């Protein structure tokens, strides 16, 4: 599997996800600077976490309109999967790769901690190594993770099985208490309609090896390796 990681000014989880990719696949991803005209021919494009353009104006907005994103969108149209983590998720929604928007957390504070997530489906190249309904523990770290979309969009996500992860309690219930940021319907991650884009607020690359204190994120990278070779 050949992957690339798009680096925007202000990205800061680019190295972390590159390490996780290398550990899972044995190969170093290509790091692509945002001013490069095109993404290279790869099997996977990663939009990493961080604070692209300082999260100024709206998180993800300025990165979403940077030149490289046109190339990312084109590649995805031609079928290249996109993994969009945290700030990457914000970029992906602003760029129209995914529906909805990530608003500031309901409590107006940055939040960094482990959360429990329910894996909603194993029917995707990103989640095949999980089982549907599995409860996993993965960290979040964001100020703007409050997923918002209109009712029609939310219904469509649910009806078409496009919600990938939901914040839940230890027993797998997506309760109010388990929701760390006010996201509608406890949504932590969603797929695009054709399931070639996954956007998620939690950081699987921070739960990818024993030194992290948990390895529940590893299966996401293993799923990709299984699907993409």
């Amino acid at each position, binding site marked *: 599997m050949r992957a690339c990681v798009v680096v925007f*000014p*202000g990205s*800061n*989880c680019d*190295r*972390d996800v590159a*390490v*996780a990719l290398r550990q899972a696949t044995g190969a170093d991803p290509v790091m692509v600077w945002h001013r490069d005209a095109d993404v290279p021919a790869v099997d996977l494009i990663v939009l990493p*976490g*961080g*604070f692209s*353009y*300082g*999260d*100024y104006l709206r998180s993800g907005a300025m990165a979403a309109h940077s030149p490289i994103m046109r190339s990312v969108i084109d590649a995805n149209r031609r079928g290249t999967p996109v993994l969009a983590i945290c700030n990457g998720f914000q970029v992906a929604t602003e760029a129209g790769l995914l529906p909805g928007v990530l608003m500031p957390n309901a*409590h107006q*504070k*940055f*939040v*960094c*901690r482990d959360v429990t997530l329910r894996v909603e489906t194993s029917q995707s190249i990103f989640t095949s190594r999980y089982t549907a309904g599995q409860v996993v523990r993965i*960290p979040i*770290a964001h*100020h703007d993770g409050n997923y918002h979309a209109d009712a029609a969009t939310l219904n469509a996500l649910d009806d078409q099985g496009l919600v990938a992860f939901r914040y839940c309690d230890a027993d797998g219930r997506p309760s109010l208490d388990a929701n760390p940021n006010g996201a509608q319907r406890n949504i932590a991650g969603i797929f695009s309609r054709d399931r070639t884009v996954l956007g998620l607020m939690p*950081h699987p*690359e*921070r739960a*990818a090896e024993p*030194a*992290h*204190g948990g390895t529940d994120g590893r299966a996401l990278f293993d799923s990709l390796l299984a699907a993409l070779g």
Partner: protein
Amino acid sequence: MRITPEIVADHGLSADEFARILHLLDRAPNLTELGLFSAMWSEHCSYKSSRVWLRELPTEAPWVICGPGENAGVIDIGDGQAVVFKMESHNHPSFIEPYQGAATGVGGILRDVFTMGARPIAILNALRFGDPAHPKTRHLVAGVVAGIGGYGNCVGVPTVGGECTFHTSYDGNILVNAMTVGIARTDRIFYARAGGVGNPVVYVGSKTGRDGIHGATMASAEFDQRSEERRPTVQVGDPFTEKLLLEACLELMESDAIVGIQDLGAAGLTSSSAEMAARGGAGIELDLDQVPLRERGMSPYEIMLSESQERMLMVIRPGREADARRVFEKWELDFAVIGRVTDSGHLVLRHAGAVVADVPVAALVEEAPRYQRPWVPSPPQAAPEIAAPADMAAALRALVGSPDLSSRRWIWEQYDHMVMADTVQHPGGDAAVVRVHGTGKALAIATDCTPRYCAADPERGGAQAVAECWRNLTAVGARPLAITDCMNFGNPERPEVMGQFAGCIRGMAAACRALDFPVVSGNVSLYNETSGKGVQPTPAIGGVGLLDDLRHVTTLALKHPGDALALIGATAGHLPCSAFARTIAGTEAGPPPPVDLAAERRNGDFVRREIHDHGVAACHDLADGGLAVALAEMAMAGSLGATITATPGALPLHAWLFGEDQGRYLIEVPAGRAQGLLARAAMAGVPAILLGRVESLDSLTLPGGCSISVAALRTAHEAWLPAYMGEG
């Protein structure tokens, strides 16, 4: 413009100091030159009150690569790697504008570390606020915590630990101390020295605006009504630009283009150019027309004294301007050649074609005044009687739920403490543990100080702060290597305050020597005083230790029901000046516990050896709240209970449970290994007793049969801070 006595006074210079300037220059300075002296001779830049005392601190060890005097200290951790670290205060700005003050404090200390060629890998913050009941406190806590998080999170360096306590002495003067730790290659350390006559002097980063002019003099004066008028001088931080600056500097540092580099901190271009010239024994000539400006019409005075953030000054090798420019333009930062190195020994400034200042560098730096301020020793404290509480369990619950001992989760969950994916031990333990990227090694990092001890007995308090930091690093299994410090005190012109300063330094020096724990960098913040009321003496200590093998990392959480608990170190039941005395008995009087540095070392070395050679399941040092609080913290972290089977002997139970005798640890080992542990302790001359055992039940059983639910303790422990912040 004629320099009148009023202008001199407005610049924070005394009549004697001005006379000294006249003598050094052999003429009257112009206003720009007066500004240069005012900044460089301020307490903040010159250390004029503290320097004579700081010399007493030990600064050397075989592993020290660079001690105090540079932007940060540097120590060797083997394999060609070095740790670069420093702590700094941003107290006054944070009181005036908590978010931006704290944020720019983090920005400044990050630059101090990456300017030396290190990639920052961890941030810590040591915070002191006023009485929780004081009307300003809540607002200050909210702003400071958001500001620290806002900056560090955006730059992408994890904030992994710190301290936060409350005391009424900080009502008008909060303390915001930030520490950064970075990793560099030992053969690629960069120093702030100008060298090579004719070499270009280069400015990079953000543009210069009218921000923070006179920040250094503000940090060197007591607060009064007029501070309000100085308000517009607060700087706004831009962490996004800092991230770009960090990456650009580290990228250029891969080449050999840089001769010397220094960040622009307090007193901006003035101190960076003068200090680089002084360290390199050179002169510098600057053309101020070349400085990138944010506003039109800035005077030389303003350009030189601006404290705009996210800027650096470099001397580069001749002919390398184009390479350097390419790197900074890639990162969309300003880049300008603004001068050159000379052999004149003078700082010469040109503006609009004229020389606007010409001052010997030595006059600004080496010739800055140095004072042996009068001081009086702090009076010894008589020990009060501390009565037993009616209910031990209730006292314990009240302590773990008190402002100073309750959980800081509300704070550290606002900090990204995991970015860089190398945080092995999160906030909440004795020390943060951060892996050295790509290796099996890790650094342990902690900040410590117990100001009430320092107030009661500065010398003991100073020694205790260093010892506690050393103990916290030891408790996670690390070998403590060196410290940085941040000396926060009141007005040094008061002999009592200087007495506190002198006492703390003596105590610190003794502890550093006894523990082989030298000081490699630090910062002094004086005049933390409002209307004659100073803060408790607060020498914050930031320590770094090394774990050669990550597998030895030990946490404080209880692990296995049935394991034995052993108490290492002697218990004398010292209650005066303890957290119990303050919170439960309502008295702050009395002397702090004695600090036996030889025992501290013996006990710590023993514990570390046990962790390495025999493995321990859990380890925690005993500090505020003594044995009972330490045990409660271990139980809460592990969600397990424990039964104490040992008895207090001749001591009153409350003194045994809550006394704060130093040099102690609680460790968990498999029951079958307990006797071996005790035998080895006896051989090493280390006091150790079997304290009790870990239980699967959710309760702590204290001597006398009283028991308390761990869940109830946790509720009390977790509740206070969110409730105080209005989120209960």
